[in-house]
């Protein structure tokens, strides 16, 4: 077994690094930069039942060591994803996580059902934390009971492992984590973006057409590490950790905090090679700290 191999439900990853949902499209744009089979896995853009155009532009704004986005889950709808996108990405040698979203429970269930039709899906990631859509999304992520009910329904229509993607916009992330664990989640992804806003100091107008958006990038890393650490104290569920990862050192910090694998989001935008570069740097860093296999890192089992 390779030093970088990690095993998560549905995801046998040759290394713990995947691009984060929404920051990788369906992979096509990264194929010119490196061989996508280098990746541990890939999480593809949030998928809904119908196609969505998303929010008006401007959709991004810059912040110190971060960015705001309000894309609004633009995607071609699950049918097109299954028919055109997944088969393309599926030809590479990497597990695929499909991120899905909906305005109500029924939509999540429908999308999950459609995804059963694809042979290329290895796991589902329920986005219950998208701050950029009017209905659904974040509301599920801020209410442990709604989140649990949703998880249960989706589990009933799929045999795929279900990861629930948690929102940082809560007072206590462990409540939602424990609720979805009890409801049958196979894993957790955290964190999604923090709700944020920027105004033009001259006019007072919001920079994003949507007014508010999701904050990502290195600015949020300390919040991500804290939440992963908190969840790891109370749950043994596998965690895909994310939020501001830019370097291989960051990956080890996340794994020490309790992540079993990681996702890299915003960093792909300014450096499209970042995932590949991180993966290549990991062995040297492990040597430096005298760790042989990366899966050794992280917390011991919790007694729950």
């Amino acid at each position, binding site marked *: 077994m390779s030093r970088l191999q990690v095993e998560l439900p549905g995801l046998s990853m040759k290394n713990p690094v995947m691009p984060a949902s929404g920051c990788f499209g369906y992979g096509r744009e*990264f194929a010119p930069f490196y061989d996508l089979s280098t990746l541990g896995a890939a999480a593809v853009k949030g998928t809904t039942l119908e196609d969505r155009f998303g929010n008006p532009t401007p959709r991004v704004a810059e912040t110190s060591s971060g960015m705001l986005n309000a894309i609004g889950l633009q995607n071609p709808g699950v049918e097109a994803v299954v028919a055109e996108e997944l088969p393309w990405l599926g030809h590479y040698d990497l597990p695929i996580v499909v991120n899905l979203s909906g305005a109500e429970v029924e939509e999540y269930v429908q999308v999950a059902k459609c995804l059963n039709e694809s042979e290329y899906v290895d796991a589902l990631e329920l986005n219950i934390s998208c701050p950029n859509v009017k209905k659904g999304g974040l509301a599920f992520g801020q209410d442990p009971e709604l989140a649990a009910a949703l998880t249960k329904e989706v589990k009933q229509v799929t045999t795929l492992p279900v990861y629930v993607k948690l929102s940082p916009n809560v007072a206590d992330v462990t409540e939602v984590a424990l609720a979805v664990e009890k409801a049958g989640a196979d894993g957790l992804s955290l964190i999604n973006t923090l709700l944020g806003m920027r105004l033009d100091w001259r006019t007072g107008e919001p920079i994003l057409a949507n007014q508010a958006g999701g904050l990502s990038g290195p600015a949020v890393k300390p919040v991500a590490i804290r939440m992963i650490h908190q969840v790891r104290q109370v749950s043994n569920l596998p965690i895909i950790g994310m939020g501001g990862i830019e370097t291989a050192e960051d990956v080890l910090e996340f794994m020490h905090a309790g992540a079993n694998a990681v996702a890299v989001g915003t960093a792909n*935008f300014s450096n499209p090679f970042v995932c590949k570069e991180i993966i290549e740097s990991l062995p040297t860093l492990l040597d430096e700290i005298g760790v042989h296999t990366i899966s050794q890192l992280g917390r011991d089992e919790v007694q729950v």
Partner: protein
Amino acid sequence: MKQENMRVYSHRHIAEQTYELVLEGELASFLQAPGQFLHIKPPGGELLLRRPLSIAKAEPELKHCTVLYRVEGKGTQQLTALSPGDTLNVLGPMGNGFPIAEAQLGETALLTGGGIGVPPLYELGRQLKQKGLRVVSVLGFSDRQAVFYEEQFRELGEVFVATDDGSYGRKGFVTDVISQEALSFDWLFTCGPKPMLAALTEQHKAAKGYISLEERMGCGFGACLACVCEPLSPARAGQTFYKICKDGPVFPLREVKL
């Protein structure tokens, strides 16, 4: 597309808050068409997003390529500190430029640009002149202090300058100049603020030509969906949206909603 630490070959102030930056590197050999842009990592540490700047002049034989930028905010401000020999992280060339294959010897091309929309028209004009077209340029600026590259455009052909406040050249917009001079042309190429693009499109309902769009970008290579725009008739275009960074920034006239 390539990511490279390009060397600053020269850097000079050319108008109020406006600079000409000549970069040197392998990337300069990859340029495909005028209108493509470079995606530049601001040299200070805390800005994550790259800044799109159009290629204003390509000299592949020297491995040089020139951008002209106006200081708007933090990112362009950071560029002003660069000195020859410094390096700058560049991703590029990005996007689809102006297609000039159809343009014929002897035809007239009208280049209309406003403010920081002017730079990509310069390389475009150079290539059109090379192909034997007659090049006429109408350049709009806010005021006298903002005017740049008038001389350079004059080497390509006739030039009209308009300023919003009339402090230099004609007072008014590029559209005013075009009507006043009753300029005629075979091809219309334009780049600038959206209202200018909309006014030009309105003024020349049947013209052949291309426009170049601007939008805030996350990635610049099609991955983030920050920079979308809508086709004017989705049915015909066969798709519901375009990514300005990848499908553009140049589009045929009347292809996208402005």
